[in-house]
């Protein structure tokens, strides 16, 4: 069994009087695809943002490869996100003013890679995601499915160890959603990246190796629960 890469313990996070996380614990193993499921407002996205170091939890600990994420400075966490993590959001969140190629190259450029080299690697990823034809187009001029595949390419271009995907197919029709998931999981397995996949769709979660369900801010391992019930 692969080792634990990202471990969160007893995470709590509130937005005003609303508790988004109420003692959530989760472990992400290297190379696994973990689906985080749950109804709207259950705290899935907050959990993902905490795991990615975007949101600081009110309490609890998160360790990534043995390093305490909650104790890291903002600068260190930003550096970690640039080099080790990749992100995919529901609407792609491509930068509208950059071409698709520049969008994919952006994480590399932020990490200090020179433009020509960054764009070369970006072009290769676009080809792998079968959207090389939109390289020089602006995000506003391509379809949602194409945009999401560009976003997947962008999340993979730095060779991250963890990809955080927040409802990556939420804005797509089922056909495009399937395509994106196939390409994402395939690419992740090829590169050995772990994927934390937030979704409320069972068919999307079906691509995952393991599922956890977030309910009322607490994460429950579905397999463990099933085993418990069987026992």
């Amino acid at each position, binding site marked *: 069994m692969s080792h634990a890469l990202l471990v969160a313990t007893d995470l709590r996070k509130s937005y005003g009087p609303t508790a988004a996380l109420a003692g959530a614990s989760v472990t992400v193993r290297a190379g696994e695809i973990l689906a985080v499921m749950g109804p709207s407002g259950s705290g899935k996205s907050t959990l993902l943002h905490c795991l990615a170091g975007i949101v600081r939890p009110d309490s609890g600990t998160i360790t990534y490869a043995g390093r305490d994420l909650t104790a890291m400075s903002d600068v260190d966490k930003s550096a970690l996100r640039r080099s080790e993590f990749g992100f995919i959001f529901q609407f792609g969140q491509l930068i509208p003013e950059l071409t698709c190629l520049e969008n994919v190259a952006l994480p590399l*450029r*932020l990490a200090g890679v020179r433009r020509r080299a960054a764009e070369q690697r970006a072009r290769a990823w676009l080809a792998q995601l079968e959207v090389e034809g939109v390289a020089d187009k602006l995000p506003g001029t391509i379809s949602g499915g194409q945009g999401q595949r560009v976003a997947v390419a962008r999340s993979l271009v730095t060779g991250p160890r963890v990809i955080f995907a927040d409802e990556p197919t939420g804005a797509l029709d089922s056909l495009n959603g399937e395509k994106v998931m196939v390409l994402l999981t395939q690419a992740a397995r090829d590169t050995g990246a772990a994927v934390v996949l937030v979704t409320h769709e069972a068919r999307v979660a079906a691509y995952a190796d393991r599922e956890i369900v977030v309910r009322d801010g607490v994460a429950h391992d579905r397999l463990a629960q099933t085993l418990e019930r069987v026992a």
Partner: protein
Amino acid sequence: MTPQGGFRAWARELALGARMALAGGPSGWVRAGLTALGVGLGVALLLVATSVPNAIAARQERTAARDDVSFDEPPPRSDTTILVGKADTWFRGTAIRGRLLQPDGAHPPVPPGLSEIPGPGEMAVSPALARLLASPEAELLRERLNYPIVATIADEGLAGPMEFAFYLGADDLDEASDTVTRRDHFGEPRVGPRLDPVLSLLVVVMVVILLLPVALFVAAAIRFGGEARDRRLAGVRLLGADAHMARRIAAGEALGSSVLGLLVGGAIFFGVRSFVDRVELFRLSMFPADVRPHPVLVLLLVVAVPAASVAVTMLSLRTVVIEPLAVSRRAADVRRRLWWRLLLPILGVALLLPMLGSLSKSGGEVNVTLVSLGVALVLVGVAALLPWAVQAAVRRLRGGPVAWQLAIRRLQLDSSTSARAVMGIAVAVAGAIGLQTLFSSVETNYLVQTGADPDRAEVFISLPVQDGWADVQRLERAVAATPGVQSVYSGMSRLAVVGPTTDPQTDEPYTFVTVGTCDALRELAELDACEEGSVFLVASSESDNGAVPPEPGRTVGFLDERTNSVVGEWTVPVTAQMVAGRRAPDGNEPAGVLATPSALSVELLATWSGTLSSYVDITDGDRDAVERLRTIVWNIAPGGDFSLTTPTVRTNEFATVRRGLLIGATVTLVMIGVSLLVGVLEQLRERRRVLASLVAFGTRRRTLAWSIVWQTAVPVALGLGLAVISGLMVGAALLKIVNEPVSVDWSTIALVSGIAAFVVLAVTAVSLPPLWRFMQADGLRTE
């Protein structure tokens, strides 16, 4: 569909749009609020601008109603007349209007703002003067105006709420004094001098230049939240609205926002108006009741703003393709055409050309409408050319660091938003340069060279002599004993008729006889040797008082100017020497006879009537010394002349126009800064999702901050470049209209451009904290 149904459908769609503008939860309310604030700020400023004519008229009416200067023969003394003495004074550079009132009988006229005439030694003061007198820093003024305050001057007796004014009851006014007049009423019909043509032109151009950026900001504010609106419209299309319906709904949104903006503008206007009496700008204050917008202009504004908002929205929708896929696909930035943009300034210059050389200070006529239109077209040309210039400049830019790339790509995708943001400031700068070019060139025509030399004496005192030479000695002693005074030279002078006869009815030459110590006379003439008893004759070629020096040995007759009769004679000693005159410290050229006291008889010295002049040098920057001296003069004669010597003075009208420009420019600049800030905040808010995702990738703060700076700096640099060129064009055309040689004041250009750049940088700096806030994960949570 029947026409009625059509109208109903239109109304329904417009209403739906208006509801959408105001709905949408907190995010929608913030968007609507920012748009309303942007439009409202512009509307408020336009309301203030439309109130200016009323405010000026109301001010003039009140000052005319209390006017006590008339060129008519004064009325004979009666039960219904009053003696009014001018007693204006200053305190720390601020003018205080003062009048001494002495009723001739039981039913004197009462000046506006008073219910009765204060008794002798009692004072009625304006509220502002009452506050000043009660303040700790007015100790020196209290020494001067040390009278019991028995009444407050009401608003109708004041030019403005911050005016310092008083009426002091008196019982010893000398009705023969130049500063005292008899009145049987207060108030004179306002026959104020018309502004000369050049100043009129300046005022017209000023109004156009100050209001144009405001109109541009209103137009820019209407387009706030454009991207969110496009997404909403795409949603509406998904529900079955066709493209025309979507446009009508957009028009309804624009109407809703602009109406809200009008309401906000009205609220801001009334808010500002309610405390306008507590603010003084460049020594001008207004009563809230004076700030009344002209009803016709208000109506125009109420119609024009919503109409303009719909027009602007329709124009902006031309570049957007809204499809029913819940995604609005923005067409690539349309390649802008240059020809019609260039046509605007060319047309503007063409309108100004026929008027070149048609004005001068002394006269000439100019078509005000054409000048306004010409200047407006050149300036609108700046606004129209800027988006083209930004697009053309950034089109081919590639590469660079990430911050630069983000900024340039943003400008390439949508240059108009950034261009719109700096359009107003570019137009304001162009206008300011044009106006300033005209101002600095014609300013010398409105500067009067006084010839005064503050290095020799900073204070000049002129008083009527009542007790002969003793008055001079008393004043000198009092002044010399005043802390801060370094030197004082005084003398007294008097008009005299030069023989052969001493009958003032004949057309004989006259001269001035000035008596002073040798030290004092040295201030008026180049004297090698002087001792008591010396007499000198000065013929100054520059003298404009017409006085001629008599020949030695001639007898002169001293005139009593009140009775125009000779009241004493004196023979100029044969030893009197002709000497070269020296310009006095107050700038006057002396001429006539300069005599030391011993050269005249004791009787003549004791009965001397005429004018006492005193030149006082004080320690540099000792403002208290000035106030103490004013009090000394006040105690001798409240209406006495007291002035600070200055080499040049601006004419009143020019100073008034310049003051108007400063007030307008200040208000416009503040407005521009606030509007820019609102615009930047709106842009940041619209892009918070993108900003949040950039943060998720680990983008550094400084990278984003620099991208914002570049995104603003590029259009600003281009805008300022265009503004300088257009401003010089406007300035040159205006100078040619008033027949002045074209000259470029580069320091003004640098100053104006520097101020504009500072405003933009300050706004960028102020917008950084919200940027940090938008860079948090909240942007992602909105998913």
